[in-house]
C-alpha cells in the first residue's frame, strides 16, 4: 500500500487484483496507481492482459479478488446505475474501433451526445464537427464505417471517445495502422487534451518512440504483475532483466516468448533424450 499518495493524486488505485481466466492466472495480486492528470503508458508482451486490465477498470470484467478504485469508487461493488454514471465520465478507445455499423461517421460521434443529453441539433452539430476536425476527418462525416480504412476508423473512434470531454480516457493500442502524419496528429491531440483539459490518459501501446513523446510514466506488465515502472526515457536502462528483455526484444529472459506448452521434442514425436 502506498500510503503517501492521497486519493486526490491517484485517479485509479488497483490493489491485489487477481484474475483467473480459463485456468490461467492473468493477474496475480497486481498493484497499480494511475496518477490524476497524467498520461500513463502500459506496455507489455501481447497476451499479458493489458486489454483485460482496461476492461477491469471500466467494470466490463470482474476479477476474482482485489480492489479497483476509480475516482474513489470501488468498481466491482458499484450498482448498474452508479457504474453507468462513472462510465459517462470515461472515454474508451477500442483496439478495433468498434464503430456502430448502422450509423455514419457523424452519427457515431454524435451517439453519446444523443443518448445522454437533450442538446439542440445545432449544438450537437458544432460539437461533433469540432471533434472530427481535431482528428482530421471533418470531410468524412457522411461516410459509413465500412468505407473507412483502419486508421480512419480509429481516429473516428477517438473523436467519439472525447466527445464528452471525459475525466479519463483509456486508449487500447491507438497507434496501430496510423500513417506518420496521422500518428503525429493523434499524439498532439492526446497531449493537448491532457494539457488543456487535464484529462487523465491511460495508453496501451507498443511503440516506444511514440510513447516517449507523450507519456509521463511507463508501467511494464508481465506475468500478471507490474514488473517495472518509471520515466519513459530512463526505464529502458534501469537495469532490470524485464526491461532489458522487453525493450531489447530478446527471446530469452524472464518473459517467456512461448505460450505455456509441453515439451517441444515430445510434441514433435521425437524420442526423449536420456539425461
Amino acid at each position, binding site marked *: 500500500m502506498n500510503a503517501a499518495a492521497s486519493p486526490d493524486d491517484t485517479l485509479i488505485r488497483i490493489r491485489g487484483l487477481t484474475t483467473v481466466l480459463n485456468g490461467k492466472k492473468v493477474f496475480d495480486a497486481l498493484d497499480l496507481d494511475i496518477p490524476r492528470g497524467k498520461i500513463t503508458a502500459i506496455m507489455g508482451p501481447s497476451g499479458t492482459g493489458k486489454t483485460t486490465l482496461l476492461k477491469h477498470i*471500466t467494470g466490463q470484467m470482474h476479477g476474482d479478488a482485489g480492489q479497483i478504485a476509480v475516482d474513489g469508487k470501488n468498481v466491482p461493488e458499484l450498482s448498474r446505475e452508479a457504474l*453507468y454514471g462513472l*462510465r459517462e465520465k470515461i472515454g474508451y478507445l*477500442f483496439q478495433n474501433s*468498434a464503430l*456502430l*455499423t448502422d450509423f455514419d461517421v457523424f452519427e457515431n460521434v454524435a*451517439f453519446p451526445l444523443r443518448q*445522454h443529453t437533450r442538446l439542440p441539433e445545432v449544438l450537437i452539430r458544432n460539437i461533433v464537427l469540432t471533434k472530427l476536425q481535431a482528428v482530421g476527418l471533418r470531410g468524412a462525416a457522411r461516410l459509413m464505417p465500412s468505407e473507412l480504412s483502419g486508421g480512419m476508423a480509429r481516429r473516428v473512434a477517438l473523436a467519439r471517445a472525447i466527445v464528452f470531454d471525459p475525466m479519463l480516457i483509456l486508449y487500447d493500442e491507438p497507434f496501430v495502422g496510423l500513417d506518420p502524419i496521422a500518428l503525429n496528429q493523434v499524439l498532439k491531440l492526446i497531449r493537448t487534451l491532457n494539457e488543456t483539459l487535464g484529462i487523465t490518459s491511460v495508453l496501451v501501446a507498443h511503440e516506444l518512440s511514440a510513447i516517449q513523446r507523450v507519456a509521463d510514466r511507463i508501467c511494464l506488465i508481465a506475468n500478471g504483475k507490474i514488473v517495472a515502472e518509471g520515466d519513459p526515457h530512463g526505464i529502458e536502462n534501469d537495469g532490470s532483466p524485464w526491461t532489458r528483455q522487453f525493450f531489447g526484444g530478446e527471446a530469452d529472459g524472464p518473459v517467456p516468448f512461448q505460450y505455456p506448452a509441453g515439451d517441444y521434442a515430445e510434441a514433435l514425436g521425437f524420442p526423449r533424450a536420456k539425461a
Partner: protein
Amino acid sequence: MNARVDDNVVSRSLAQIGECGLFLLKVLAAIPRSGRYARETVRQLWFVGAMSLTIIMTCGLFVGMVLGLQLYHVLSIFGGTAATGTVVALSIYRELGPVVTALLFAGRAGTAVTAEIGLMRATDQIAAMELMAVDPLAYVAAPRFLAGLIAMPLLCCVFCALGIFGGHLVGVSWLGIDNGTFWSNMTDTVEVWQDIVNGVIWKSLAFGAVVALIAVFQGYTAPPTSEGVAYATTRTVVASSIAILALDFVLTAFLM
C-alpha cells in the same frame, strides 16, 4: 457412448432453455428503460416488419391460391365447393396464417436480428455501447424484441388478407365458384372472437414474442467469431421452428 451424447444434447438444450428464460426476464426488465430509445424501436419495426412485407405478401397470396385449388377439388367430391371460401378462411385464420407467417418471420427477420447482434458483439459494438453508458439490453435487445412482438400480428393480418384474396382469385375467378356464395358462406361461419382474435391475433403475438426472443438471445450469446455467428443464425431458425410448432399445438388446445 450414445447415451452420453444424448444426455449432453438434452442437458445442453435444457441449459439453453433456462438461459433463454433468464434472458427474457432481463429483456422484460429492460423494456421500461428502452422507452427513451423509442426511435430505435421504430427503426427496428421498419427492418423486421416493413422489410418483411414482400415475402409475407407473396407467400400469403400463394398459400391462399394453393388452398383454393386443393380445397375446390376435395370439396367437389362432396358437392360442397360452395364451402371453399369458408374452409380457406378458417384454415388460414386458425393455423396457416399465424404458423406460416411466424416461420417466414423467423427466416427473414429472426436470422437478420441474430446475425446483426452477433456481429455487433464480435466487433465490440455492444461493449462500446456499455462503455458509452448506453445499456445494450435497453438499446439493442428490447427494441428488437418489441419490434418483433408488434410486427408479427400486423404481418399475420396482411398474410391472411392476401391468403383470402388468393383463395378468391383461384376459387371464384378461375374455377368459377359463385362470388356471392364464396363470401356469404365465409361471413356466415367466421367468428371475430374465435377465429380472428384467438386464431390470428393471440397466436401471432405469442409467436412474435418467441421468435424475437430466440433471435435476440442467440445473437446476444453467439461466440464472437464468424463461425459462432453462423451457428447462432442456424440455431435461430431451428429453435424458432420447433418452438412455433410446439407452441401452436399448446395454444390451439387452450384457445379453441
